[in-house]
């Protein structure tokens, strides 16, 4: 049996009256890439944001069920949300650097988590190396992050996320707003990170899911229709709905 990183049990989410996620139960394999596919509005992003409790920023959201991280439900009352979010990082759809310099963007998270100045600088350098940004920005670390291109900004956001060494990284259509070459860059970075981090990516690009995923979840109208190892789900989908979606007949 595969080792699990996150286990979701009977997860239900409502936005007001709208039942957005219905009885989702799934185990996410550790240090592999899980891709969530499905048409727009099927609850992919909602599911992703429920994994690091970012969902509760929205008004009138109600969550039921369990998300187990190390056997512990992150929705249990009394759980330290900031610790959950430290262990489960996130890369957004569009790059949103923080309103500060390139260096501070990566250093910010480290400082917030109480790292001393002496240990911040090497960690920042490592993270920037890891995303292949160091050579491009090492001469202008104090410049505002807004001066970078979209692809560079997204890599900066990735560096910022991995600087605080999360166990799990959630990516919400993180290449959707980038040009093909920048998107390719992010994709290959995600493949590099696989093996060290558990990655959960949302994508509406089936080709991308085929390239990256070890494990696939197919969602439809708030339900988890089918999930399984990528080879199985893409090679031999069990349900007609999945077959039709993969064949682009629907969705």
């Amino acid at each position, binding site marked *: 049996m595969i080792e699990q990183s996150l286990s979701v049990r009977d997860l239900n989410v409502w936005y007001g009256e709208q039942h957005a996620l219905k009885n989702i139960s799934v185990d996410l394999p550790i240090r592999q890439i899980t891709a969530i596919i499905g048409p727009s509005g099927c609850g992919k992003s909602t599911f992703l944001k429920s994994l690091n409790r970012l969902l509760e920023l929205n008004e009138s959201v109600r969550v039921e069920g369990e998300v187990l991280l190390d056997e512990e439900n992150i929705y249990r009352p009394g759980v330290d949300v900031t610790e959950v979010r430290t262990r489960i990082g*996130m890369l957004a759809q569009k790059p949103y650097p*923080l*309103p*500060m310099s390139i260096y501070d963007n990566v250093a910010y998270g480290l400082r917030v*988590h109480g790292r001393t100045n002496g240990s911040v600088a090497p960690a920042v350098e490592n993270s920037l190396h890891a995303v292949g940004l160091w050579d491009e920005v090492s001469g202008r670390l104090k410049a*505002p992050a807004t001066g970078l291109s979209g692809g560079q900004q997204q890599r900066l956001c990735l560096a910022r996320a991995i600087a605080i060494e999360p166990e799990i990284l959630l990516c919400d259509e993180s290449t959707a707003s980038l040009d093909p070459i920048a998107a390719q860059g992010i994709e290959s970075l995600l493949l590099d990170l696989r093996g060290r981090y558990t990655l959960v990516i949302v994508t509406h690009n089936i080709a991308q899911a085929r390239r990256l995923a070890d494990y696939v979840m197919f969602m439809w109208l708030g339900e988890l229709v089918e999930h399984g190892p990528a080879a199985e789900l893409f090679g031999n989908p069990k349900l007609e709905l999945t077959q039709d979606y993969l064949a682009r007949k629907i969705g």
Partner: protein
Amino acid sequence: MPVVLYIHAYADYGRLANALRLTLDVMWGIPSIVYGAFGFSLMLLVGLRASLLAGIITVAIVVLPILARTFDEVLMLVPKELRESTLSLGTTRWEMISVLLRQTLPGLFTAVLLAFGRAIGDGAAVLFTAGYTDSLPTSLTQPVATLPLAIFFQLSVPFESVQARAYSTALVLTIMVLIISMVGQFVSRKLSRNVIR
């Protein structure tokens, strides 16, 4: 300002936030002469005469809703994703405030300028509370002339030489506002160096 920051970090768009916004909007709409009268009755209550201090307090009340609501609007413009990105680094809401502040610094500065413009040009609020005098005050309890009131009183004097002074006062007031706006533009541009759009 702390109240507004609180709304945005914790209360978001709850009932408390809406009630507060409504209050501030109403306060913004009240003519400043009403604040003047209010400040005047407050002065009588504590036995204070028309003075610099009373004027300061009254003008502060006039300016408070402008400052708070403008800053509030600026904070509303902060993209939702910026908060999400910050929080997903495992920051507390309290720590997120520093990011919000950095993002809104130019806006905050604009709010201060706007409030300042209103304060310096407002005559009615200080009519009763600050009094009028021809000499410079040496302490908080002495009356003081604001520029708009100086224009008003100097113009109503039937001597041409004094009236001429009113026009020069008007010129000084205009130039001050001009300088403040220009400095504001400049500083605002400096501050928005890092702002995410």
